[in-house]
């Protein structure tokens, strides 16, 4: 095995571990930010500033009893959370997060930061996300509980509805970049307009960015679109009957999906690893910073906005967001054709 293969394997391992840790970090951030917004302390006992709290949570979940409803379908009940988590991890495989780097001269040949560079990366993300729906649907069905089934129906209907706007927002970007490869989309955003404004897609595609973020929040089933988990109506939605590690896997999937959506948004709209002050080889720091801002926004929104009603959500998705996305796509197509 040559060095570049080993470097790649190490990179895959690092990305996987970082995703796991990012879920833990998100749990911590969620609890701390929620506490700050509600003028509480949040977790502060486990470790310095409560930093070890997510790990304590994981240990607690691991030692809990795994319960399965008697009338449930054993096989599908076991597979569903794995499917959710696997799809969440798999989607990140095609997300690039940095330019070519030798890691401070550690490697002789530079490697590109990103697990796989696929020329249809955007579609792959789309495909893998749509696989994640199966985890939710199967969890709902196999639990053999009305709350689970209704929660699963709602969340899958929601995901399918918002996937359309999501796809149309991405299509506008694809038209501008002329490529389905995320790396090429990012590299098209290098440089500045008038020497000051970065050439990020968010400026010409501000409407697209709005649509993408709305749909992204709905896709990840987060507040204010977290109907699958509307406690008052559905107890805990599709994961009502889950406990212990299989429950944890659904949460892991949710947080990793958030990280993926933020990372993809960074690549598509915020110029990825391009930014001032830092050399391109350290661009991944910019990437992390931008993704962090988006993730913070996610948490901030959850604890600020109340939940929509289910019919409002569907009306918003189909009657407002989708037409807006279509208009955005048409305008973008017109401009791209006009400018040649």
């Amino acid at each position, binding site marked *: 095995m040559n060095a570049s293969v080993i470097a790649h394997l190490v990179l895959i391992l690092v990305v996987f571990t970082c995703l796991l840790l990012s879920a833990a970090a998100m749990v911590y951030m969620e609890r701390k930010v929620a506490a700050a917004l509600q003028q509480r302390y949040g977790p502060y006992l486990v470790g310095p500033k409560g930093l070890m709290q997510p790990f304590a949570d994981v240990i607690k979940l691991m030692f809990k009893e795994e319960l399965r409803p008697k009338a449930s*379908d054993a096989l*599908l009940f076991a597979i569903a959370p794995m499917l959710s988590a696997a799809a969440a991890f798999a989607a990140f495989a095609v997300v690039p997060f940095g330019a070519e780097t030798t890691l401070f001269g550690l490697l002789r040949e530079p490697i590109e930061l990103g697990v796989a560079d*696929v*020329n*249809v990366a955007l*579609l*792959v993300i*789309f*495909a893998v996300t*749509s*696989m994640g*729906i*199966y985890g939710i*649907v*199967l969890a*709902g*069905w196999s639990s053999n509980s009305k709350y689970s*089934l209704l929660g699963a*129906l709602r969340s*899958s209907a929601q995901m*399918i509805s918002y996937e359309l706007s999501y796809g149309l927002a991405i299509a506008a970007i694809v038209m501008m970049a*002329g490529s*389905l490869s995320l790396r090429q989309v990012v590299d098209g955003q290098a440089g500045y307009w008038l020497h000051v404004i970065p050439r990020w897609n968010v400026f010409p595609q501000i409407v697209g960015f709005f649509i993408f973020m709305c749909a992204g929040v709905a896709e990840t089933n987060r507040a204010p679109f977290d109907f699958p988990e509307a406690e008052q109506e559905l107890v805990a939605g599709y994961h009502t009957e889950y406990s212990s590690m299989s429950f944890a896997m659904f949460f892991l999937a949710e947080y990793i999906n958030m990280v993926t959506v933020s990372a993809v948004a960074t690549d598509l709209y915020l110029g990825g690893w391009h930014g001032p002050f830092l050399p391109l080889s350290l661009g991944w720091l910019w990437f992390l910073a931008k993704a962090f801002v988006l993730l913070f926004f996610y948490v901030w929104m959850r604890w600020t906005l109340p939940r929509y009603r289910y019919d409002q959500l569907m009306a918003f998705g189909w009657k407002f967001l989708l037409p807006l996305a279509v208009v955005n796509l048409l305008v973008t197509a017109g401009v791209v054709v006009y400018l040649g």
Partner: protein
Amino acid sequence: MAMDVYLFYLLGAVAIAASVLVVGQRNPMYSVLLLIVSFMALAGLYVLLNAPFLAVTQIIIYGGAIMVLFLFVVMLLNVPREDPARLFGGSGTRRFGVALAVALAIELTWALRRLGAIGLRGELPDVSSVRLIGRVLFTDYRFAFEATSVLILVALVGAIVMARKES
């Protein structure tokens, strides 16, 4: 090269096994899921054929959209488990079905044997270019493409009209 061949046989075996099991399942839920597995294996085969765009589209449209619809129908209608079927006997339609299936199998074997004689020669065309596919769709096949989109629209409107309650 050898790797490609192994992957081809592996994916082909998965696709065939899953497809056979789809028919063999008593529980319709499992049938739907096995069909998804079969579609995935097909997508893998497309990748091997140097057509990643086709593979991903296969997963998005068949594996994602259409099968979710199937799953919904099975889930909501709560389709009961099927009774064990006997291969021969039963009603007349079933016998007719068996006869048709055998005829199809013979036909397929014949077609494949012929194909074996011709063989697949030459380099595989690179059909991964989305630009190329788009161009072909909107020029050479524009009539079929537009006609299909109108047909789908008609079906959509029809479904809504039929589902609407008379007020």
